[in-house]
């Protein structure tokens, strides 16, 4: 081996993950519209829903009592949605840049690539959601961080789901090219009605409730309502969410690898187009 190259570990290399995170960081810092977009939509969301919450609180005794459930739901939904987008957009950047072939030919392993996308989703999420929570505090007096330790359980469960969906959507784009790009933008919305973000699970027809309980975010939003309305932290809900997330996470990785293999079989890795 060439003497200028260091010994490379056989397992996961932090150096390669770090290189990929640096690549996305450079990209983010090189483009102010990209940065602005990260803050713009969450800010718009929180302001719209915050005023709506204010309005219905005046008209409804329930919402006056359950202060912050709508705002809390909006913030948690954004963690779920932006977490997935943060993951998938970094992946799409490689497709748009036609750089995937370079990466696939380098010693970067798929697991390292996916881990770097996860780290980037956290960074992008922080840039978008932290200002959102500050706006919620400033405009509507809702202190998201007052949720305390349960917030960690909510966050972890939502981010794991967002990564699973992100890995799956990226695999589909990898296999089918940029023609499948719209999946990245819309897939999470398929989860939205069943995750019961703004209403309790009991609202759904009985048969649909069974489907809803297969989705980890349903447990998180139920848990959030339990905490904000009844002031009870439901650890059992979080444990269920975590268990289902573990299954989803492993399954999404397996599907990604299967789609990668399929892309290699049909020669779409170098094409990358539509």
């Amino acid at each position, binding site marked *: *081996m060439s003497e200028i190259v*260091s*010994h490379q570990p056989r397992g996961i290399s932090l150096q390669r993950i770090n290189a990929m995170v*640096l690549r996305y960081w450079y990209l983010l810092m090189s483009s102010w519209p990209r940065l602005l977009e990260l803050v713009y939509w969450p800010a718009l969301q929180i302001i719209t829903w915050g005023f709506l919450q204010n309005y219905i609180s005046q008209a409804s005794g329930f919402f006056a009592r359950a202060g912050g459930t709508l705002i809390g739901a909006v913030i948690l939904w954004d963690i779920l949605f932006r977490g997935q987008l943060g993951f998938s957009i970094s992946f799409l950047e490689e497709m748009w840049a036609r750089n995937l*072939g370079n990466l696939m030919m380098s010693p970067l392993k*798929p697991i390292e690539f996916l881990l770097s996308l996860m780290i980037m989703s956290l960074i992008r999420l922080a840039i978008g959601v932290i200002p959102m929570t500050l706006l919620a505090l400033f405009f509507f007096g809702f202190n998201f961080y007052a949720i305390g330790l349960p917030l960690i359980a909510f966050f972890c469960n939502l981010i794991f789901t967002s990564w699973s969906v992100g890995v799956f959507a990226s695999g589909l784009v990898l296999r089918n090219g940029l023609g499948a790009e719209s999946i990245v933008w819309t897939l999470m919305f398929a989860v939205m009605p069943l995750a019961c973000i703004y209403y309790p699970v009991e609202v759904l027809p009985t048969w649909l409730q069974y489907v809803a309980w297969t989705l980890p975010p349903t447990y998180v939003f139920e848990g959030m309502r339990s905490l904000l309305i009844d002031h009870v932290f439901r650890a059992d809900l979080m444990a269920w969410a975590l268990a289902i997330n573990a299954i989803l996470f492993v399954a999404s990785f*397996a599907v990604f690898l299967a789609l990668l293999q399929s892309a290699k079989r049909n020669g779409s890795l170098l094409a990358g187009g539509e």
Partner: protein
Amino acid sequence: MRLLSQWLNDGHMQQSGTGQGHAPAADQGGSAAIDVAHLVKVYKATRAVDDISFRIARGSITGLLGGNGAGKTTTIAMIMGLVLPTSGSVAVLGAKIPEQRYEVLGRMNFESPYVDMPMRLTVRQNLTIFGRLYAVKHLRERIDQLAADLDLKEFLDRSNGKLSAGQKTRVALAKALINEPDLLLLDEPTASLDPDTADWVRQHLETYRKTHNATILLASHNMLEVERLCDRVIIMKRGKIEDDDSPEAIMARYNRDTLEEVFLDVARGRLREGAPEGTP
């Protein structure tokens, strides 16, 4: 454990003897740099590569010639492990591809018009990232050296998207050389370059081969380039190997003065000198 191994190895199970704690299966010398045996690639109804076999010696420069759709890019992609063969086998630097590709990826590199470097990043940023992916030691010095060798200094801090086509080709070549690869796979390495720069790049490749005893496999439509650079030429047509020899021997066989004339003979189905009808 099986799933973990697959995650770490691109979906391929590591073959026995190459797992943690064992010596790498890829050798450091001795065998051929590339060993292709009965390679076939079928896309639906199209036979893109049709039962080809060849071995490429270490330290040689081999040209892969053929018209559009001859199967050159698919062949190179299978050698890199980016396309899975329908049947047949590929070994690179002693490692089976794709099963053991991570054993040797750090010793290979490539350049192709089918891929780009990220446009918004500067040349220096791009080279830094790829240098880190390849675990290049003393990366800053290496980038400075490449910038001097390939004349990139004046636009090292310019975005890749703002470069001319020729400058982008030089940057792509710098990326391909960043890890001083033992095996370099090049697809149209001098495309979009003016004759002077193209000649200069060819000189650089020749020098690189000599100083590093590197193996170079290049696909090209530039016959003069192939004549000048290559010790050996493999001509492909419709997925098959039509001829395989030194440029001089091939030109003699077709009774032609240039490879371009040979290329036209092959493309238009004219028989080579003395060959019985029906034989390739």
